[in-house]
C-alpha cells in the first residue's frame, strides 16, 4: 500500500492530517518473533531498511492496565514488554515521524504486586495466558499528526497510532492517541540510556470481553480496562552486549536463558537451555559466574534452581582457584538462599578477605547481615551436598 498525505490548507498550521499505510516493502503480516536473546523482536529486513530502528527498553512500568468497579480497583503493571518502532533516518525532512512498530508483552509479567491478587487473576484467566502467552501489538498506521516542537535535540509530536492488538487468540483494531518525543543523545539524556530515544506516552480503553473473556458469576470485574503506556525506545538494542570482554554469542545465549526464566516464566525450558549452555562454557570462568549470578541475583525469577547455580559457581570458583571475590560472594549468596547460614558467612568472609581493600561497603554489609542472621538462628541446617 503506498503512503499518501492529504493536507487540508485551512488546518495547515494546526494539524497535518495524514493517513499513512506501510509502504508495500515494509508491510509485515504479523508481529515478529522474539530475537535470539529474547529481549527484543526480530526486526524484519523491510523495517531495517525503512528507517532508524528504536528498541523498547525494559522499564519499571511500561504498561499499566487498570479497572475500577464499585468495590475494587485492579492495577496490573509490567516492565517486560519487548518491541521496536521505526522512525525516518532524516527526521527533520520527514512527513511522518513513526513508520512501523511492534510489541510483545508476556501475560505472566503483568502483576498487581500482591501475590494473592495475582493468583486470583490468574485463576480467572483474565488475560488468557493459556491461549496466548503474549499480548501483541502491531502498528498499521498513523494519523492526526501534529508537530509540537522541533528543537536541536528534541522533536515532539502528537499523533494517533492505529494497530492490531492481539490477546487470547483474537486480534482487534485499536486506536491509541500518543505523545511522541524523539530525544537525540545528549550527555544529559544518556544518564537514562545510551543512544537516541523515542518516548511514547498514551492510553486507550480495552474490553476483555472483546477478546473472548467471559466473567464468572459473582466475579466483579469492570467491563473496560484502561491501558496506560509509557514506552521508552533506544537505538541500542537490549540484545547487544556492551562489554567487549564478553562475546556477543555468549551474551545472546545468556539473555535467552534470562528471558525464559524471568520474562516467559518457563523454568523447564530455561534450565534445560541453561544446562546445555553450561556444557559449552564449562571452562569459561566469566560465563559460569554470570550464569550462577543470574539465577540467584536477578529479581522476578519465580523458580530459582539453586543446585544449578551452585554447579556453575563451584566450577567458576575452581577455575579461578578461589581468587575471584565476586564468585566467592555468589557462592555465599547461594548458600544463604539454601538456608545454610554458616556456609553463607564462611564464603562471604572469603569474598571480603579476597577483595581486601577493594571490597565494597556492600560486601561487608552483607557479611554482617549474614552473621547477624546466623547468630539469631538457633537451628543451623547441615551444609547440603551440592
Amino acid at each position, binding site marked *: 500500500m503506498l503512503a499518501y498525505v492529504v493536507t487540508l490548507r485551512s488546518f495547515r498550521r494546526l494539524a497535518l492530517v495524514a493517513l499513512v499505510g506501510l509502504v508495500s516493502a515494509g508491510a509485515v503480516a504479523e508481529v515478529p518473533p522474539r530475537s535470539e536473546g529474547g529481549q527484543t523482536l526480530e526486526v524484519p529486513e523491510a523495517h531495517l531498511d525503512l528507517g532508524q530502528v528504536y528498541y523498547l527498553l525494559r522499564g519499571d512500568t511500561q504498561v499499566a492496565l487498570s479497572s475500577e468497579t464499585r468495590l475494587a480497583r485492579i492495577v496490573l503493571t509490567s516492565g517486560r514488554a519487548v518491541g521496536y518502532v521505526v522512525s525516518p533516518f532524516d527526521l527533520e525532512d520527514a512527513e511522518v515521524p513513526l513508520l512501523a512498530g511492534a510489541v510483545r508483552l508476556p501475560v505472566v509479567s503483568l502483576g498487581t504486586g500482591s501475590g494473592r491478587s495475582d493468583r486470583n487473576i490468574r485463576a480467572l484467566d483474565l488475560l488468557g495466558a493459556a491461549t496466548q502467552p503474549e499480548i501483541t501489538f502491531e502498528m498499521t498506521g498513523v494519523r492526526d499528526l501534529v508537530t509540537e516542537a522541533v528543537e536541536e535535540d528534541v522533536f515532539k509530536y502528537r499523533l494517533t497510532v492505529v494497530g492490531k492488538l492481539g490477546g487470547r487468540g483474537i486480534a482487534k483494531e485499536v486506536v491509541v492517541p500518543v505523545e511522541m518525543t524523539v530525544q537525540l*543523545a545528549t550527555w544529559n539524556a544518556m544518564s537514562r540510556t*545510551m*543512544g537516541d530515544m523515542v518516548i511514547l506516552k498514551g492510553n486507550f480503553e480495552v474490553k476483555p470481553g472483546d477478546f473472548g473473556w467471559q466473567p464468572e458469576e459473582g466475579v466483579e470485574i469492570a467491563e473496560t480496562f484502561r491501558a496506560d503506556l509509557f514506552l521508552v525506545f533506544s537505538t541500542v*538494542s537490549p540484545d547487544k552486549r556492551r562489554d567487549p570482554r564478553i562475546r*556477543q554469542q555468549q551474551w545472546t545465549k545468556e539473555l535467552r536463558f534470562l528471558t525464559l526464566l524471568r520474562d516467559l516464566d518457563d523454568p523447564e525450558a530455561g534450565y534445560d537451555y541453561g544446562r546445555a549452555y553450561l556444557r559449552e562454557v564449562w571452562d569459561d570462568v566469566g560465563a559460569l559466574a554470570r550464569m550462577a549470578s543470574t539465577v540467584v541475583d536477578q529479581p522476578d525469577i519465580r523458580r530459582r534452581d539453586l543446585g544449578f547455580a551452585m554447579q556453575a559457581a563451584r566450577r567458576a570458583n575452581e577455575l579461578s582457584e578461589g581468587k575471584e571475590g565476586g564468585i566467592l560472594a555468589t557462592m555465599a549468596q547461594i548458600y544463604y538462599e539454601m538456608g545454610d547460614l554458616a556456609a553463607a558467612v564462611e564464603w562471604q568472609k572469603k569474598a571480603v578477605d579476597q577483595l581486601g581493600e577493594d571490597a565494597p561497603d556492600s560486601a561487608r554489609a552483607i557479611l554482617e547481615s549474614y552473621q547477624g542472621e546466623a547468630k539469631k538462628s538457633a537451628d543451623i541446617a547441615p551444609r547440603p551436598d551440592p
Partner: protein
Amino acid sequence: MTDRTSSTFRRSLPTAILIGLFMAGLALGAAPAQQWLQWGGPNRDFTSPTQGLAQSWPEEGPRVLWRRDLGDGYAAIVVDGDHLFTMIRRGDNDVVVALEAGTGKTVWETEYAAPIAPNFHPGFAPGPSSTPAIAGDRLFTVGGFLQFHALDKASGEILWSHDLVEEMGITPPGRGYAASPLVYRDLVILTPGGEDKAVIAFRQADGEVAWKSQSFPGTYSSPVLANVDGEEQIIVTMGSERAGLDPMTGELRWRLTVREEATTVFSTQLWGEQDHLLFGSSAYADGSRVIKVAKKDGKFVAEELWYSRKMRIHHGNAIRIGDYVYGSSGDFGPAFLMALNVRTGEVAFRQRGFAKANFLHVDGKLIILDEEGDLAIATPSPEGIEVHARAHVLEPTAWTVPTLVGTRLFVRNREEIVALDLGS
C-alpha cells in the same frame, strides 16, 4: 614503473629477465618494501600506496600467512622492514612487542608496570590503545596511563621514559590515553591534555621537553600533521577545541571552539590539503562537522562550514575520497556504512551489512574490517559500497585498524594477530 630495459641498461638475456622479475616483484609488493611507521600509515590518513590487490578471495578468505596469540589491547600495528611492533596488556603491565613480519615469531618484548589509574572506566578494558610510532632506530610508545617510552627498535631496550602522571600531574582520560604519538622532525608529540601542557613535544634523542602548549582537555583522538597554505601545523581535537599549532614551537596558529557536546572524540580528523577542509566526527552526543581553515590578512581563521548528526563515528576511522567521506556510523546501536558530501554534509548513502568498522583506502578500494571480525574489499562511490569479497578473519572484538604493507595485511583483536596475503 620506470622501464629499465633501455639500451643504457641492456644486459645479457638472463640478467634482463632477472631484472624484469625483480621489478615485477616490487610492483606486486611481494617483499616488504613499504613501511607503516605510524598510526594511519604513511600520511596518517589510512591510505596505502599499494596496488594490485586481489578483487576476489577463495571461500575460506584470503590466504593466512601466519596467525598467533598476541594479547589484550587495541594498539594498531606498525611495520618497518622485517619487523612489526604493537602493544598489549598483560595483567597490570603494558608490553611492547616486536615480531618478525614474515613469520610472527617474537623478536623481543619489553614489559613495564602500568597500574590502572583511579579514574579509569573499565568498560572498554585498559588498552593499550595508542599506536607506537617509528622514527629511525627508535620506537615511541605511550600506554593508557601515560607511561611514555623511547625504545631501541632492534633490541627493545628502553632509552628514556616519562611518566606523565607522576612528573606532570596529568590525569589520563577516563577510558585510558588513546591518541597516538606524532613524529615531526626531531620531535615526538603527544596530546595528554592539561593546564598549559595539553600538547607536549619531546626531543626524540633524549626525551627532553621541547615545548608544552595550551590548556585543553584530554583527548582520545590522535593529532594530524597538515600543510595549511604552505605552513606545517599539528591539528588537534581536544574536548570542544579544534586547533592548529606550530609543530616546532607549539605556538597556537588558530583555534575554534565547537559545540559543548563534542567532548568525547576518538576518531582521527581528516585534512584536505587542496581545499583546507578539516573533517571530524564523534558519537555519543555529537556528530560530524567540517571546519574550513584559511589564511586571511596574515592570520589563520577557522570556521565551521557545517555540522550534522547524521554520521556519528565512534572509535573507528574515516576515509576521504574526493568530495566524499566514508565511515561507519553508530556507537552502541546499529552501525551503517555511510558517505557524506564533505562540502555540504549531505548524506550520499546509508548502507547496512557491516558492524562498526575501520577502513583502509588502497588503490581506489576500501579494505573494511568490522568489530565482528569480518574483512572485506569493496569499491566505494557516492552511490554506495560494492563489496567484492568478504571473509571472517577474527573473532570479536576487532576494533583495531588494520595495517597494510605491500600486499600483506596485519589485523589483530584482543587475543591474536593475523597476517593475510591480499595479493592477486
